[in-house]
């Protein structure tokens, strides 16, 4: 595809390639086109309900054909998850509505370890209401941030870089302004102004056409005439299914890549452009690893555990299809609020302990959830309810990891432990489901190769 190198300097390799302001769209279409060209069999609108792991071996998945409502066990020698991040466990997220993290929660529930779940990136400039991303380019082109005093407040925090300071820092500055009463009020939430007006209509139309369209379509504001109301929102999940650089987990036959995985290329704070690296580079490495591992046949998956799992899912669907019980959306909304407020940009022990209690309560409430219709086909309320179970697990591991990590590193910021502590915390957290269904956290050393960790200074 027509990807252009970002760097115009030829003395070093270009750090990233792009295709206008629709790189992801172009990658997605090219991938699908190649899949059609190769005759790859695709099962459209199948929802994987459970991952089948027994005695350290993955046997495949159980899936719900959304269109027919039929449950289907899928036996596989190799299973790869590319299920995306867990943004939607937060109330405010730039992610698509389907980025619930259910793939991650499913892997965890089946016994696969998760790594560094507490590292959650917040993007500073997201449209209020829909939380749609207002890209870095807005500030890159020269946009200003104003509080309700009409002050360009970044001057007080990072006078050298101003609005161009890194994502996590700008997010904390904006959140501080809002927390200290210098935000604007709107029924959709408190906000800060992202002002592009001084760039002039011509530049906005030429350089930020996508942003202007989004503002007009989604909030009814033309950034040529009015400032854009923005707030920081969850943006990227650094943590995920613990895999090595071949995208293999420690479960035989189970692999993961992209945002649902944690290869640890992002550390505690992903850099701009590197989400593409996660999908493109590691997607290919995973394919190579699977081909290698299957040479000579690979382990034969067993049908018995799959059929047993299918029966369990069948029972779960039966329980959920009992009308007149608790509503999944209500629990999801409460979960989102508690993560936003207590496991968000600023974190403290006290608040995270409250969050853990709340999550335990919501898990209890979940046992009582039911959907309105017993019909299983095209039943999106049912799918939401199935996903919620996994979202609760994901939220639990994020909160527990964040509570244990008594330091500030990358996107993880503790107001009670404001500095980085390499002596005690230069290590990964690993969350695994324990025998009683509660997460157990252990630690793993960080592999350091060419670059020594250094403190970030401005």
């Amino acid at each position: 595809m027509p990807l252009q190198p970002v760097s115009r300097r030829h003395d070093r390799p270009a750090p990233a390639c792009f295709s206008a302001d629709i790189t992801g769209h172009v990658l997605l279409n090219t991938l699908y086109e190649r899949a059609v060209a190769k005759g790859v069999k695709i099962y459209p609108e199948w929802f994987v309900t459970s991952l089948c792991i027994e005695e350290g071996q993955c046997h495949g998945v159980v899936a719900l054909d959304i269109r027919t409502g039929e449950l289907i066990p899928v036996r596989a020698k190799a299973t790869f998850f590319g299920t995306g991040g867990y943004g939607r466990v937060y109330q405010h997220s730039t992610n698509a509505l389907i980025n619930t993290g259910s793939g991650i929660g499913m892997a965890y529930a089946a016994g696969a370890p998760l790594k560094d779940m507490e590292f959650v990136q917040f993007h500073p400039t997201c449209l209020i209401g829909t939380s749609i991303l207002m890209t870095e380019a807005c500030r890159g082109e020269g946009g200003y941030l104003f509080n309700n005093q009409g002050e360009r407040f970044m001057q007080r925090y990072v006078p050298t870089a101003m609005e161009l300071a890194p994502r996590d820092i700008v997010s904390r500055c904006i959140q501080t302004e809002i927390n200290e009463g210098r935000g604007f009020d709107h029924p959709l939430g408190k906000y800060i102004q992202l002002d592009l007006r001084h760039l002039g209509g011509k530049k906005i139309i030429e350089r930020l056409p996508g942003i202007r369209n989004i503002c007009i379509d989604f909030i009814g504001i033309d950034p040529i005439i009015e400032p854009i109301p923005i707030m920081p929102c969850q943006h990227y999940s650094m943590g995920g299914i613990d895999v090595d650089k071949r995208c293999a987990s420690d479960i035989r036959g189970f692999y993961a890549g992209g945002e649902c995985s944690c290869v640890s290329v992002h550390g505690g704070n992903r850099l701009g452009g590197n989400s593409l690296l996660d999908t493109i580079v590691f997607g290919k490495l995973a394919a190579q690893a699977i081909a290698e591992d299957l040479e000579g046949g690979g382990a034969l998956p067993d049908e018995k555990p799959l059929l047993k799992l299918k029966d369990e899912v069948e029972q779960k669907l039966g329980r959920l299809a009992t009308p007149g019980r608790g509503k999944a959306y209500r629990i999801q909304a409460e979960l989102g609020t508690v993560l936003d407020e207590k496991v968000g940009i600023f974190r403290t022990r006290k608040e995270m302990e409250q969050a853990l209690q709340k999550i335990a309560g919501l898990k209890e409430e979940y046992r009582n959830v039911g959907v309105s219709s017993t019909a299983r086909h095209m039943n999106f309320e049912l799918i939401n309810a199935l996903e919620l179970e996994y979202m609760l697990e994901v939220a639990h591991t994020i909160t527990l990891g964040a509570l244990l990590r008594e330091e500030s590193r990358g996107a993880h910021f503790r107001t009670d432990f404001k500095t980085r502590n390499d002596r005690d915390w230069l290590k990964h957290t690993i969350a695994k489901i324990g025998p009683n269904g509660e997460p157990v956290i252990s630690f793993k050393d960080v592999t350091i190769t060419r670059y020594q960790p250094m403190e970030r200074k401005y």
Partner: protein
Amino acid sequence: MIKANSYTFKILRYDAKEPERGPRFATYRIKVIPGLTVLAVLIRIRDEIDGTLSFRCSCRSAVCGSCAMVINGKIDLACRTQVAIFDTDTIILEPLPNFEVLRDLVVDLTPFWQMYEKIQPYLIRESPVPEKEILQSEAERGRIDQFVNCILCACCYGACPVLAREPDYIGPAAAAKLERFVLDSRDERSAGALDAVNDEKGVWACDTLFRCIDACPKDVRPTDAIVGLRKAMVKNRFQKMLGKTKDEA
């Protein structure tokens, strides 16, 4: 303070698994604050009022193309349509035309994807695969720009008056996709690759009424593609008559 206005949503309900119930409109009253989209309201209705309501959605930002439907008579994506833009407090939602309804606002897109696959929607190369990427100038990229923007939402397919009477017609989106590759400087498909759409069910079926252009949420102009493909076909035919192949021309 911005205040909420009360709206009436009338949504066409139907379940292909219960055809005996027939299609019917369900009415929901809901308070909407300015800034809310039709999709946001649909989600609220499903969550808070009626969990049996079926509709597709994913990105909620006009890039995934899942939530195409008819909104007060106009085909658009529910996620990018503000409730407050209409001069009425009644919003009527219907499934995308030219498709079989599966359940409520969910239609069966199988024919759309069949047409997409029919035109070989991928880069075709005859030359050996190079070590690195195949470079393209900005001008060459510019020629395919608008067609690359297509999000395959099927708004154009639903809006097409030809498809309403001729379900075997290739449709605007597939034609736009084909033109995207025909115009691509790196694509080496033969002139014969156009044969699949060189008939009365292919690009010649189009009435050039421009409804597809009107319906596209991404400013793609499928009619440009259809006209371009027709020209290419005529040119190919003349060259064939003169005994030349595409490669020599």
